[in-house]
């Protein structure tokens, strides 16, 4: 009897140690505060819940940063972490947030669009919880998120996700994917409320351009591109041709399929006056046939299995020993976003948007991503 209780107590102690050792890092990850040094050009910080009351007090509520120029003009909305496991988009939007000056028009940034997914992870796929970016003054730590919102915030999953309002049947997991729940509704599941709030921003603030910044596998055909519906195609094509000619990198145009519902590049255009664009840069980390999912792979994109596949022409992007480093991916996002804004401003001068001091592709490749993040210990004011 005594032996049995000793054994049970010992096993239970091991169980508790496992729960605590495994649970504390996950708890800290979920409550991690992303470091952000705002540009002096930030004029207002709002919450997404101001546009949809159903988000108030939930993990899906997130900051919306406004950078308003002195001269009236057009408005651009930049969203990242729609899929929070595609960090080049987040880093690009933070570079805008920390460095941009807006001369004319307004720039609105939502860096952690799917805030719940930014606090989620995928331990079964061996995702690292954090990654660090080197700067001249030290390392900055960012949380690595997941593609979908946490089930702690939206549960249960349906057997099949029925898209609103088109009733198209999608995978059950897409109920927590904020690139399938557009245009959303105010009283729907939490992720539909997130996209509804963004639609409300576009309608109420009269947003001209919406840029949703992503990353995609090198083995997925829709990568290294700008996805645009018919109404945005002309500007997307001009931006694609210009970055290729002037900056020397490829970002082709993919048409947004009209029969596939719930995606930002489709629904934003159909349910508002805004012109949507979805930006994709390659992210080897997300490819299935890679080595271990390490921070190093996330940052440098170098993988010998992908290299072997590239030699067999199985990838949809050029790939060599240099991999796809983060600075290249972030640089592409910054340049493509700036070029879309420039093309739109040329086409409709009365709604022009002038964004200054954001680095282009070549500068990011030369200086690295960390060069553009500011030391929080130095008070700029």
């Amino acid at each position: 009897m005594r032996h049995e209780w000793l054994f049970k107590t010992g096993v239970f102690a091991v169980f508790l140690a496992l729960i605590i050792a495994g649970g504390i890092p996950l708890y800290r990850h979920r409550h991690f505060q992303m470091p952000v040094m705002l540009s002096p050009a930030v004029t207002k910080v709002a919450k997404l819940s101001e546009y949809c009351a159903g988000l108030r007090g939930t993990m899906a509520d997130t900051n919306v940063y406004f950078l308003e120029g002195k001269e009236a003009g057009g408005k651009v909305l930049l969203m990242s972490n729609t899929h929070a496991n595609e960090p080049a988009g987040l880093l690009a939007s933070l570079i805008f947030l920390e460095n941009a000056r807006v001369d004319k028009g307004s720039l609105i940034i939502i860096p952690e669009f799917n805030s719940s997914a930014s606090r989620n992870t995928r331990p079964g796929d061996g995702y690292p919880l954090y990654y660090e970016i080197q700067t001249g003054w030290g390392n900055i730590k960012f949380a690595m998120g997941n593609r979908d919102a946490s089930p702690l915030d939206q549960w249960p999953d349906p057997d099949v996700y029925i898209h609103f309002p088109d009733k198209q049947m999608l995978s059950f997991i897409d109920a927590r994917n904020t690139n399938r729940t557009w245009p959303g509704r105010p009283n729907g599941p939490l992720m539909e409320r997130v996209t509804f709030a963004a639609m409300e921003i576009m309608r109420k603030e009269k947003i001209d351009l919406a840029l949703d910044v992503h990353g995609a596998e090198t083995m997925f055909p829709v990568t290294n591109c700008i996805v645009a519906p018919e109404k945005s195609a002309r500007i997307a094509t001009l931006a694609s041709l210009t970055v290729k000619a002037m900056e020397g990198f490829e970002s082709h145009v993919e048409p947004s399929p009209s029969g596939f519902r719930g995606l930002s590049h489709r629904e934003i255009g159909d349910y508002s006056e805004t012109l949507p664009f979805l930006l994709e840069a390659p992210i080897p980390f997300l490819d299935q046939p890679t080595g271990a999912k390490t921070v190093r792979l996330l940052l440098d994109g170098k993988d010998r299995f992908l290299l072997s596949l590239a030699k067999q022409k199985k990838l949809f992007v050029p790939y060599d020993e240099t991999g796809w480093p983060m600075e290249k991916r972030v640089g592409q996002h910054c340049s493509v976003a700036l070029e879309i804004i420039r093309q739109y401003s040329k086409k409709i001068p009365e709604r022009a948007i002038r964004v200054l001091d954001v680095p282009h592709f070549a500068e990011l490749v030369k200086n690295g991503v960390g060069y553009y993040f500011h030391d929080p210990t130095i008070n700029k004011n």
Partner: protein
Amino acid sequence: MNLIMIAYYAMSVFLIGLIVWNILREKKNYDDLLLYLIVLIPLVLRVLRVK
């Protein structure tokens, strides 16, 4: 949705209770004991709203 969420947490607590009760009653089979504890992990993490 909220009602289902509450019901889910109530079910998790109920299952934790059942499993703990079985652990306490298990006298002989240590393999079953370990299995009970493994099954317990996700339920406890969810009730604590960790994962």
